[in-house]
């Protein structure tokens, strides 16, 4: 039997629906819908600046039985607007306690192939959940985000089969109010391709993108070094 009736997905990438954070979050959300939970989704970058939007954020969080925060790793931590949302939610909940037990899951991805580089950001999420009165269900780390690149996981084929399998296991556990099993975390954080190959493909990818903008030869520019 399910522990929760509804789930809220908060996407913490400024790229919104076209982000890898949305790809991963959507997949988990759909799995939870299949298990009978009703769902809502919102984008943090649109909810932190203006006061009326902040109220919308508080209301969404307040109504949710389960919250999934899906975000990209930015400089070893969370993107600034996501931290802002956490500061606001924490402050709001210190003033008005929510009496129901609300589950909280963090789901993060990074452009480095090693998922462990996300660990510090997940620790920040765990402390936030604890300090804000949420029931921490676990932190999921996915390395090699460039291989998903905002495309739905279902369309990414065999390369991300372990990620899908891990999220399936995670959804089953979370719906029942259990912690995310280690097996699921291990599957999702498994390297999708060898690191040397990822590094080579990544570097080629950056050069390819720069060529599109006619910036290939300027990639190593040092615009700020002249005044040293």
């Amino acid at each position: 039997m399910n522990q929760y009736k509804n789930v809220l997905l908060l996407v913490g990438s400024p790229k919104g629906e076209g982000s890898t954070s949305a790809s991963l979050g959507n997949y988990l959300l759909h799995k939870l819908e299949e298990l009978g939970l009703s769902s809502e989704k919102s984008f943090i970058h649109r909810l932190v600046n203006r006061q009326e939007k902040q109220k919308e954020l508080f209301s969404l969080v307040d109504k949710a039985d389960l919250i999934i925060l899906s975000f990209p790793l930015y400089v070893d931590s969370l993107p600034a607007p996501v931290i802002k949302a956490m500061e606001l939610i924490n402050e709001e909940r210190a003033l008005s306690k929510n009496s129901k037990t609300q589950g909280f899951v963090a789901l993060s991805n990074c452009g480095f192939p090693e998922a462990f580089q996300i660990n510090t950001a997940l620790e920040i999420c765990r402390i936030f959940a604890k300090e804000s009165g949420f029931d921490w269900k676990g932190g999921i780390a996915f390395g090699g985000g460039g291989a998903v690149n905002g495309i739905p996981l279902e369309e990414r084929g065999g390369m991300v089969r372990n990620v899908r399998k891990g999220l399936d296991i995670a959804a089953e556990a979370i719906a029942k109010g259990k912690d995310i099993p280690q097996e699921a975390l291990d599957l999702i954080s498994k390297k999708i391709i060898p690191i040397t190959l990822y590094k080579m493909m990544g570097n080629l990818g950056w050069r390819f993108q720069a060529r599109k903008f006619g910036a290939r030869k300027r990639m190593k520019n040092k615009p700020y070094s002249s005044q040293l």
Partner: protein
Amino acid sequence: MKALLLNGSIKEDSEIDALYDSIISELENKGWEIESIILRDVNVAPCQGCFECWVKTPGECKIDDAGRELAKKMVQSDLIIHFTPITFGGYSSEIKRVIDRFIPTILPFFTKRDGEIHHTYRYEHRASIIVIGILPRPDSEKETVFKTLVHRNSLNMGAPIHEALIYVKQETDGKLLSEFNKVLKKVEGSA
């Protein structure tokens, strides 16, 4: 030598402001050229994650605001000091908004460093980093996460010297200032 001080306090706090002023005095006494910015007073838009600073306008963010100027100042400094309340073990959103805008100062290319994949550096000269984190009370869990975060940031940004210093409110600032001066000596020695 040049130091860039970024104050990421969310609101005014006389105790914290006094500590910040003491740090400035220590630097002034040692002859440092200082630029101090109270981040809540400047307009820095959040990073849009577009990576145009890597592939379209290499080395420069497309957003023309104080964030772009701060990245430039960072590159041209020998030391950057972040001053931040420890927020769930990490930085305040004020400081993080600026740190996110520092990515034009590195290159997109991957390299292996200390056995891990990181981005390569754009500039040969890189600033050392001191982060002063403020806690309302002792909290070993948050302190551990905070120190790990500072260490990992320094690995990514290539800081020659880095240190995370913790100040617990209502303690005397003597211990912090003595630790600060020790790190400062190391920074001066590395230049």
